[in-house]
């Protein structure tokens, strides 16, 4: 393994960094913004659980991305991840919330077109359907939690101060769970395209802990997410704040838990196997957008409250972002691969 691998991997690491900076704000943004949790405490918990989620549960969703497009050279993987990262950067700069999952899926399809590989449309339709199902499911879970908690609080007569204590503890647990689910589900976005071309080898740690080749790659990706969390997410929290809807700490807890549940449902092989074994309907293991899950949850609660508090023009911009991000990433990837192959003489597919 030479240094060039890490140069190629840099685009994935950059994607991981931006995921950490942006999506961590979804997990503990309101908790930190309302001063319920200190930034350092939240960032530490989130980082630890992102790593655990990515390393131990990350493979399921990444396999589905591999089925969509088996990016089989490092240069191709580099450009696929870079095209996704640049698309996200442009959209964010234009003030539009975007999904890393959609960008990477768009970029993979761009690579498929360029390399002449056939796109598995059944997998693609499965992935695209999750873009719709994910926010709806998250919204439904959030509404159920919202009604349950509201009813509980109305009848339990918990003192305001005690409720504050429980919320604080709940936010810590939700941040841990949300981060675990984010790592498990979204590591595929960051490192998924490098799985087939990675020269990294697994190793054993003292204490009998063994990491296979993919887990080592995911560990590196998770560390880049952690760097994003520590270096930039605080700034995102301060800038973005409560744009979509003003949230109380309790609502923030519901949003994070709903998002965590949805991401976990789309990432856990164990859960899928369990449901399949009882012939129950299960969800495909696909990387979904944590931002979409958050937006779905916030919208669900907003509608349950009567819909007066929702900033509707922003919703329009988000939907616009959802439609344009994959198309932009696909086009950008296609054009960039052409340049990488013909100007820089790199092998972008085999």
């Amino acid at each position, binding site marked *: 393994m030479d240094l060039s691998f890490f140069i190629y991997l840099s685009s994935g690491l950059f994607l991981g960094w931006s995921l950490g900076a942006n999506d961590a704000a979804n997990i503990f943004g309101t908790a930190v913004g309302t001063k319920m949790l200190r930034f350092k405490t939240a960032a530490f918990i989130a980082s630890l659980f992102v790593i655990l989620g990515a390393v131990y549960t990350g493979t399921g969703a990444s396999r589905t991305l591999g089925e969509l497009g088996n990016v089989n050279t490092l240069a191709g993987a580099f450009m696929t991840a870079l095209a996704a990262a640049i698309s996200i950067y442009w959209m964010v700069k234009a003030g539009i919330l975007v999904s890393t999952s959609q960008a990477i899926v768009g970029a993979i399809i761009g690579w498929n077109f360029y390399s002449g590989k056939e796109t598995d449309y059944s997998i693609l339709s499965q992935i695209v359907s999750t873009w719709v199902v994910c926010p709806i499911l998250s919204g439904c879970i959030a509404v159920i939690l919202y009604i349950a908690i509201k009813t509980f*609080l109305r009848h339990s*007569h918990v003192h*305001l101060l005690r409720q504050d204590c429980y919320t604080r503890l709940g936010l810590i647990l939700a941040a841990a769970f949300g981060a675990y689910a984010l790592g498990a589900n979204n590591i595929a976005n960051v490192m998924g395209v490098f799985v087939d071309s990675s020269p990294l080898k697994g190793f054993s740690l003292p204490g009998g802990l063994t990491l296979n080749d993919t887990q080592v790659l995911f560990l590196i990706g998770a560390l880049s997410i952690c760097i994003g969390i520590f270096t930039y997410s605080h700034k995102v929290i301060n800038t973005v704040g409560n744009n979509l809807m003003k949230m109380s700490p309790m609502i923030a807890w519901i949003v994070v838990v709903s998002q965590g549940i949805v991401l976990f449902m789309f990432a856990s092989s164990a859960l899928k196997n369990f449901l399949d074994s009882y012939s129950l309907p299960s969800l495909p293991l696909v990387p979904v957008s944590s931002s979409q899950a958050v937006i779905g949850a916030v919208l669900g609660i907003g509608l349950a409250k009567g819909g007066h508090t929702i900033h509707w023009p922003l919703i329009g911009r988000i939907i616009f972002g959802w439609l344009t991000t994959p198309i932009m990433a696909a086009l950008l990837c296609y054009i960039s691969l052409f340049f990488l192959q013909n100007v820089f003489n790199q092998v972008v597919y085999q």
Partner: protein
Amino acid sequence: MFHISVSLFSQTKALESKIDLFHDKLLDIAMTFKKAIQVFLSEGRSENYKKTSKHIKQIEHDADCLRRDIESKLYTQNLIPDLRADVLQLVENLDRVINRFDEVTYKFFIERPEIPSEYHSRIIELCDLTATCAENMGKASRAFFRDLSSVRDYSQKVYFIEHESDLSSGHLRNAIFDSDLPLANKIQISDFINEIADIADLAEDFIDELLIFTIKRDI
């Protein structure tokens, strides 16, 4: 982590008791005020009145200590960051009502107004209304911390009683200015009636703010 949680819960419990105690002080002072005015009207500035007045002063002092303690603990322990400003405002406003009870009692002690006996029952009735208004205000405030759905019930009572006290004080002042009392005496008694009725007005203002805080507190 476990230690932090346990310590946070024990601190919270201690502060919960203090907030409850602070509300108890409001109820205490409202009832003692009623008694003090009755004593003054029947005995004037007697030893009994002095004792009751001193008791009111002590309640006011204890409430002040509790208020300071609650305010500083809310900040130092970084509790309820999103609602802290509202709770501080609420505690301050409650304290303002407590202070007003003390001020009016003290004013009776200093100025010793001469109130003809035909007005005693109506002044006692006004004090009764004012004290009941403050009691319901205290109950609404306590409900804000534990039982949001009851806040509205107590608030309605406060609005109703405040209106009754306005009517009662208006009729009483009318009757006083229609009487043959010297003008200085009329003005002094009218001023006392205003001071008593103002307590109910303060309670009404408190409830207006409390209802807004309740909307904010609802998830």
